[in-house]
């Protein structure tokens, strides 16, 4: 009779191997399942990013010479008034669009969350309509609304006894015009994000507040806003990333001057400048340098926003 001890190694070896195989498989399988995203990201995300860093060191004509110039593109960029102008425009448009848009979304979300709202679904769905409208169509319609001589806004201004404003020609006017388009498009989207969070807030809180004599405004201020802190932080970060990369609106709104968004580049954003340099003038190296600069700015800004947002999130009223 074989002792169990003697038989065990002989019997156990294949079993252990199977188990080891199985555990390796179990450990690797999740990576395989998520790999499609990372494979695609490597090809379409990381590689172009690194390649952009690479060609920013060259004087790079896409169909001609590639001459290594070191950091020359960046030194030129620092002294390029057009780049700084584009940066100024980008930030101005970002502030003008993000701040009113998020405030309006907060207010709308609060209204849509009202317990006694009739046709709630209709209203909640309709705020999303601008978001599903094509950007190009929006831009063309807004360009007509803001037109100097024939636009509806100037028609109203004239009715009220004001002078016509040449929105597209002026720095601030063109920024307001583009910011309005962006706000129009994204307010509904942010409203729904806020609304979703608001619905998770227990009704009892509002009822208790009402019982304590808080009116709608007080409830908004002391119940809605504090409950929305994390989602506010989230929307601020996403709006920042999106706002620093505004492209289609300035490209289409002002056909005068081609890719410059106006004769004085008054509404040319950084991404549009990048596009002008790369695809308009074939300065791919310089365009890439603009891209790298934008990358650094977005990362720095997002980090700053993240810190700010974490403080908001953890702060207690």
């Amino acid at each position, binding site marked *: 009779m074989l002792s169990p001890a003697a038989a065990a190694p002989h019997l156990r070896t294949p079993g252990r191997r199977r188990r080891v195989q199985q555990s390796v498989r179990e450990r690797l399988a999740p990576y395989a399942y998520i790999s499609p995203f990372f494979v695609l990201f490597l090809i*379409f995300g990381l590689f172009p990013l690194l390649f952009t860093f690479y060609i920013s060191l060259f004087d790079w*004509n896409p*169909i*001609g010479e590639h001459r290594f110039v070191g950091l020359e593109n960046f030194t030129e960029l620092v002294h390029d008034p057009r780049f700084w102008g584009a940066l100024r425009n980008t930030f101005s448009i970002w502030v003008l669009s993000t701040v009113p848009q998020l405030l309006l979304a907060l207010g709308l979300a609060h209204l849509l969350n009202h317990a006694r709202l009739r046709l709630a679904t209709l209203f909640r769905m309709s705020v999303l309509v601008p978001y599903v409208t094509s950007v190009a169509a929006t831009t*063309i319609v807004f*360009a007509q609304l803001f037109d100097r*001589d024939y636009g509806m806004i100037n028609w109203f201004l004239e009715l009220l006894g004001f002078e016509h404003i040449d929105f597209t020609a002026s720095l601030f006017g063109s920024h307001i015009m583009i910011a309005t388009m962006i706000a129009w498009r994204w307010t509904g989207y942010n409203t729904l994000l806020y609304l979703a969070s608001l619905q998770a807030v227990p009704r009892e809180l509002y009822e208790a507040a009402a019982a304590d004599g808080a009116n709608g405004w007080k409830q908004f201020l002391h119940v809605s806003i504090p409950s929305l802190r994390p989602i506010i932080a989230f929307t601020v970060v996403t709006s920042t990333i999106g706002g620093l990369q505004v492209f289609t609106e300035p490209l289409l709104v002002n056909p005068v*001057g081609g890719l410059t968004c106006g004769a004085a580049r008054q509404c040319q954003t950084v991404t549009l400048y990048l596009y002008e340099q790369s695809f*308009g003038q074939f*300065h791919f190296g310089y365009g890439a340098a603009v891209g790298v600069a934008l990358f650094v700015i977005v990362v720095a800004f997002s980090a700053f926003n993240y810190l700010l947002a974490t403080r908001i999130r953890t702060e207690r009223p």
Partner: protein
Amino acid sequence: MKRLLTTAAIFATVALTAAGCGGSGGKSDSKTFEFWSFTNINQKGDVDVYTKAHPDVHVKLTEVGSTTETAQALTTALAGGKVPDLVLIQADDLPKFMQSPDNFVDLTTMGAGDIKGNYLDWVMAQSTTQDNKIIGVPTDVGGLAVAYRTDLFKAAGLPTDREEVAKLWPTWDDFINVGKTYVQKTGKPFVDNTPTSVFFQAVNQGSERYYSADRKLDYGNAQVKAAFDLTLKAFSAGISAKQGSFSTGWTAAMKKGDYAVVCSPSWMLSQMKTNAPETNGKWDIATIPGGSGNWGGSFLAIPKRAKNPKAAWNYISEMQSPKGQLDHFLMQGSLPTTPSVYTDPQLVGRTDPFFSNAPIGKIYTQSVLGIKPFYFGPQDGPIGTEFLNTLTSVEQGKVEPAKAWDTALTNVKNAIRG
């Protein structure tokens, strides 16, 4: 293990699909070639004519998009993708490709040297390199004339007959004076805007533009300055409606008759019909001040890596012959680049009812005969844009006329980075 293999196979496939887009699509033979064009120029019509005459030839025509989009697609293709055998390039995009002529077949090797005399010399010069390689064969030019509103001219007490109107403005100074009279009589602006209708046209009427004859940058020369000053003069005369070309205001003002003249290349005529159909029959066309001008045009080129350059060349030599270009004009309206057909009765007799039956073939072809060949350099696009933009800023009250020239030179210097 089997499951792991399956998973591996799936993402290997994904990776291959993603990376494999550049693979060859179908085989090619000597009777098949691929042709990239832009939209709105009806190359489809030409291709149909050609394949009807040669039923054994198969042309794969792709209308890529706008002129810019087509140039961008070509750039990407030349930089490392699948190139077409034949491509249409718009004149404004051509200088960028002329910088790197090695991307294209030198058409003199196919026989372009024998036919180059058929085309306008100043157009041919744009697609010829300094060492006499021919990169493109011209398919059409823009030509220039002044479109004017006969009803508004009548109301202002000006003549309406196109011959008499042309006599009003042999020079740009005369044009400005007519504008002043018009503004005095009607109280309304005369011309759509001065940067496009005056500067952009007058600057093409000299013997050199932004480069000297020996192909050196020379954008601050006396001829450019004269065109610039002329534009400032027109602006100061108060004749401009200050509607930037192609803006929403420009279109609206065209419908409402808020300006009476617009300097219009031949391809703009169809845009005017689309923009302002209600003005049908109220327009007429007269010779441009200075007598000559061009805006636009396109070229056919064969990329070096083309699979079937011979078939593409056969197409060029047949369809871009003087007769081919005449037929294309009669079918679609693009102006031929071959002066030998400019006296053809069919071309001379072509009129347009939208423009009071003006003989468009005759007027526009005459405008391209007087042009002197000057060199189009790689920086022509950005330089022209900066000059135009500065003059637009003057119209918008953002730059003082007295400082405009210096501002323009600074902007150009920035734009060309040197």
